[in-house]
């Protein structure tokens, strides 16, 4: 399944179950508050994109959602099915142990789980099957990213978090990465993506969360955000929201 349109034509998210729920999430480092009372729900089978200027705490929020960071206040709750591996993770610069082949690397991660994984199928899905015997240090940037994606879905976790999956990639590869996020969502996975590539976000995201000034400045499907701010695309929404000095309360548009 591939996307031809430039606008989001995916059906609006219906009552899919919540997989991750953040309630009143706050993170503070000594004097500095990074996140202030964030409420957020991630649903199965959807792509949730996290956007916002650098330093607004996107990575912090992701780490909180992953459970790798303790919130100062509030909590993060995993509400999905009880599985071995609840959340998969694609870090911003995926790197793998050198001297191992692509297949060996994936097999290693698979071996950390009880449930068997069909590594062949996994590699095929990310178009890496042909290079399965190549050492990872010989992969191009794009292929490494693809391998990272493959790693993140080992064991079919109900939720996956991609940290800037398109960054540093050429447009084709970047699109491919987001394609995969859509495919995953189609299969029911809750995908959380953070990105600076607003065009791709616009095309593939079901929900966009705009982080600004310690809070969620805007949240909702891309089309609706455009409508709400009376602008044509997400850039405008972005500018509109980040231009305001004092943040208003969450303008959450409910369906």
């Amino acid at each position, binding site marked *: 399944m591939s996307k031809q349109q430039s606008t989001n034509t995916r059906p609006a998210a219906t009552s899919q179950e919540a997989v991750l729920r953040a309630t009143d999430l706050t993170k503070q480092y000594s004097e500095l508050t990074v996140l202030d009372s964030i409420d957020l729900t991630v649903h199965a089978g959807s792509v949730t994109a996290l956007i916002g200027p650098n330093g607004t705490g996107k990575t912090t929020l992701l780490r909180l959602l992953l459970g*790798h960071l303790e919130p100062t206040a509030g909590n993060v709750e995993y509400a999905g099915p009880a599985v071995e591996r609840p*959340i998969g993770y694609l870090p911003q610069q995926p790197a793998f*142990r050198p*001297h191992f082949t692509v297949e060996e690397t994936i097999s290693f991660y698979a071996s*950390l789980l009880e449930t068997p994984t069909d590594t062949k199928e996994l590699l095929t899905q990310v178009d890496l099957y042909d290079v399965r015997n190549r050492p990872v240090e010989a992969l191009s940037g794009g292929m490494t990213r693809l391998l990272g994606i493959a790693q993140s879905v080992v064991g079919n976790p109900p939720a996956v978090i991609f940290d800037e999956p398109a960054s540093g990639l050429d447009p084709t590869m970047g699109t491919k990465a987001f394609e995969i996020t859509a495919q995953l969502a189609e299969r029911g996975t809750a995908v959380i993506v953070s990105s600076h590539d607003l065009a791709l976000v616009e095309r593939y995201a079901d929900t966009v969360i705009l982080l600004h000034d310690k809070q969620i400045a805007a949240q909702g499907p891309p089309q609706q955000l455009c409508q709400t701010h009376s602008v044509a695309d997400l850039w405008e929404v972005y500018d509109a929201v980040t231009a305001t000095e004092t943040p208003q309360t969450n303008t959450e548009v409910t369906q």
Partner: protein
Amino acid sequence: MSTIVSTFFALFKRELKTAMRTRVYYLITVGVIGLLLALTAGGGGAATGYVPTVVDLLLPLEVLVPVLAIAIGYRSVVSDLERGELAVLKTYDVPSSVYVFAIYAGRAVVLSVILGSGLLATLLLVSFSSGPDTSIFATHTGLDSPLLFARFIVLTLVFALALLAIVLLMSVAAQSTLTAIALAVGAVVLVVVAGDAAIILGLTDGWIAEADLLNALAIAPNSAYRGAVFETVIAVTAASESGYGSPITSVAGLFAWTIFSLISATLILHRRTV
């Protein structure tokens, strides 16, 4: 439970595979074998027996083993950390303890193989080259025997593995590879030098009594090692001498260093990635 076991072995195997694919380790092995053989042949101990060879190798090994432990161990955790792989591993629900112990086990095997090869090569050299000086008179080997050398090998490996645990602890505490090696070197030097210095100081100032000396010696890893070797290997051939060091306390001390370091590493790692 079985997940933990299989996770452990998955990580352990990965460490071993990595080591086998690191060319530098082969060079190090050759170097260690060469160095030990040279020390043995040069000291003249080879031609006369196992125990004199132990005597000749003891001091150089006190220097070599820490260096080896650092070389094999300093990158242990920190390279995974730098790569960001620790965060990824956490999503597979790999407990910090399993991770630390698996890494340690893998490196321990590598260190044991490198050091063990050198020492076995030495054993072979001695067994082939040692013989009586003349054939005119009847000879026997006295109490010299490969068994004593085997004890020496075991003690050396126990010493090496204790140091490796300390190095691993430093590696976990470090934020980068550079810091890791600096910390590792610093810790080993501290433990090796300060241990002896503390004992000497304690004896001089009086807060280590003569009766406690044996126990004090067991505290610092290198003096524990030295004392145990003297007591169980060298002193066996000497005329009913003993009191060089309590071997059981020494080995217990070395084990304590190992366990303590590994547990601390686990705790630090656990706090780190949360």
